[in-house]
């Protein structure tokens, strides 16, 4: 496959999936009505379809599908950037404790019975605070070495996990506890136009930042000392990468809970298909991640009347696939 056709495929597939997703769901809307409702957004058309169908397509399915794509893309590019920066294939987006901190923030919001939007804001703020704490802890003598970052991440994640357990411990078992447990399993059911306005700006900004510095990630993957002798301000670059991935992950976790495995697996898929060069890999993971999570979420929302937690699906499919990749690559970099 030539470079251009690959690039074209990476653009077309997610968009096609987005369009197809609007036809999938528990609420029966005829494909013709879906198409007409969408057209009516740009063309002047008399609305002769049921009002509820329009709400389902425009207020429920479309925001949810867009959010799925953005979260999938964001978590994947973050995972790829972290794996490069930490030079470790097993690194995931929650290595610096963002997920645990956001999770605790969400649990607090649920304990305080805040609404969905406030929950997202609180979870986002806690995610940022958690990583800030990790970074602060890891910085000694003006530098934050990879090892110190990882260890500090472990410390901070353990701390917030303990707080999260504490929150579950005091939660009302009739209502709050199931809500917290369910939230932790991950779901995009909270998606609304409002959550899009909250989550999209940080996710898009973070992705843009990572895409801009993607070539420098190649150099950073040579190791801190070598990268410095090649003129990279490693502390600044790491700061940029951490800031970008944290914005993305905190926003993603805050709107859809803990959706694991994407940030770990999708970068490997990208590397298998297109090689390790971050110049190509990072944009590619955006596309692959968006498509993957969109498909997973279509299953989560349409396969049964009760919503299937997204985190269960991504892990159920992600883990065996990762195992397959490991076997295939024979333990070397995929």
């Amino acid at each position, binding site marked *: 496959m030539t470079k251009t056709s690959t690039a074209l495929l990476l653009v077309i597939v997610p968009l096609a999936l987005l369009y197809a997703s609007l036809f999938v769901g528990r609420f029966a809307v005829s494909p013709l009505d879906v198409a007409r409702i969408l057209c009516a957004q740009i063309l002047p058309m008399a609305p002769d379809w049921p009002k509820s169908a329009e709400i389902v397509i425009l*207020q429920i399915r479309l925001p949810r599908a867009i959010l799925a794509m953005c979260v999938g893309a964001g978590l994947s590019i973050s995972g790829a950037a972290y794996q490069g920066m930490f030079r470790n294939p097993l690194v995931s987006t929650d290595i610096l404790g963002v997920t645990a901190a956001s999770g605790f923030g969400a649990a607090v919001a649920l304990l305080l019975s805040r609404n969905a939007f406030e929950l997202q804001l609180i979870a986002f703020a806690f995610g940022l605070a958690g990583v800030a704490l990790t970074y602060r802890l890891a910085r000694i003598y003006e530098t934050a070495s990879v090892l110190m970052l990882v260890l500090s991440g472990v410390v901070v994640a353990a701390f917030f996990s303990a707080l999260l357990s504490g929150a579950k411990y005091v939660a009302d*078992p009739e209502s709050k506890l199931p809500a917290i447990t369910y939230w932790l399993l991950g779901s995009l*059911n909270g998606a609304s136009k409002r959550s899009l306005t909250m989550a999209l700006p940080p996710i898009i900004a973070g992705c843009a930042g990572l895409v801009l510095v993607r070539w420098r990630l190649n150099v950073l993957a040579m190791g801190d000392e070598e990268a410095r002798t090649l003129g990279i301000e490693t502390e600044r670059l790491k700061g940029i990468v951490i800031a970008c991935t944290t914005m993305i992950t905190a926003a993603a976790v805050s709107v859809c809970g803990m959706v694991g495995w994407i940030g770990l697996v999708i970068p490997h898929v990208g590397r298998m298909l297109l090689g390790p060069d971050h110049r190509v890999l990072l944009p590619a993971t955006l596309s692959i991640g968006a498509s993957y999570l969109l498909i997973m979420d279509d299953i989560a929302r349409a396969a049964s009347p009760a919503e299937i937690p997204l985190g269960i699906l991504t892990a159920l499919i992600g883990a065996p696939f990762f195992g397959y990749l490991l076997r295939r690559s024979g333990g070397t970099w995929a």
Partner: protein
Amino acid sequence: MTTARRLGALPRAIIGALPRAIGALPCFIFFVGIAAGTSFASAQTPSAMPATRQITDAAGRVVTIPAIVNRVSDPWHANNAMVLMLGGADKLVATTTQARNQPWLRRLYPRIDQVPAAFNAAGEVNMETLIGTRPDVILMAYGGTLPGWLDAAEAYRVPVVMLPNGSLEDLKTTVLMTGRVLGQPESEVAAEYIRYFDDNIRRVTKVTSRLLESERPKVLHTATPGILMVDGRQSVIDDWINVAGGINAADVVGLGRPVTMEQVAAWNPDVVIVGTAPNQQNRRAILDDPRWGGIKAVREGKVFVNPSGAYLWDRHSAEAALQVLWAAKLLHPALFADLDLNRETKRFYARFFHHALTDAELASIMNATAP
């Protein structure tokens, strides 16, 4: 289940750690001594042959309990209010954190503050606190599995009675069994309560049983809208919806099931009842959410808050007897025009909780706000 497994694994873990803990041996012997002393004492204290009776519990176990029960431990949050309603609250020696935090239970029975919470929110027990409270019997909800700490409790000669938990019928059985465990006066209250409950159900079903399928509104009973969860079939909630002449819109099984927004749109309920605190705030969130905008109940302004008292009316509560009246009038106001719910509620609390509700208190219960 996880609790059972965790606790089951604990002794093995302790045994596994023992060889390594030789240094701590004197300490260990000390504890064994205490444990032996305790069981020795409890075996010796009842000088004569104590009078006992037997009761068959929800798990089908024949449990031997003292003839006279003076000290009860109730790790089932909801059932603490039942014990209060039956007049046995002064016998409570251990309760749960959750029961102690229920605002209206505290109002109706302030002493609950002094009852130690031997059970945490998850229903797990602090065995030492529990034994320290010297209960004659422990009352426990039965959901198909026995608690992991059952063997430990029985080793201390504390009988555990499992109570049925699920349907409206289970609720009535639980009231009767709780009364029987507590004693003669409580049993009489239980019988009186069941008569009252059955009267209410008869009063409602006399009307609603004649309703055609098409005349029964589809009712969605929700938990937190932040995380959309609904109450489905085979539950106490499904039961009272049916009694009150409605159909449960949530075509899923069990309480607190997460569903998609789109599924709610597909069910398109005629009525939405918000059943989780803070109900008013959660009701507002539904009305403000454009995604709910197309749903019939929202378009027609039929989003309601479920009352909450000594416990949540819609669940395992003494007020379930009122819930059937409330829901019937809510769903079919024309058919129950003669039903004065405010008067009925005041009479209920006066009769079973010996508390004369002021109008402000009545409003607090109906609006599910703290007193």
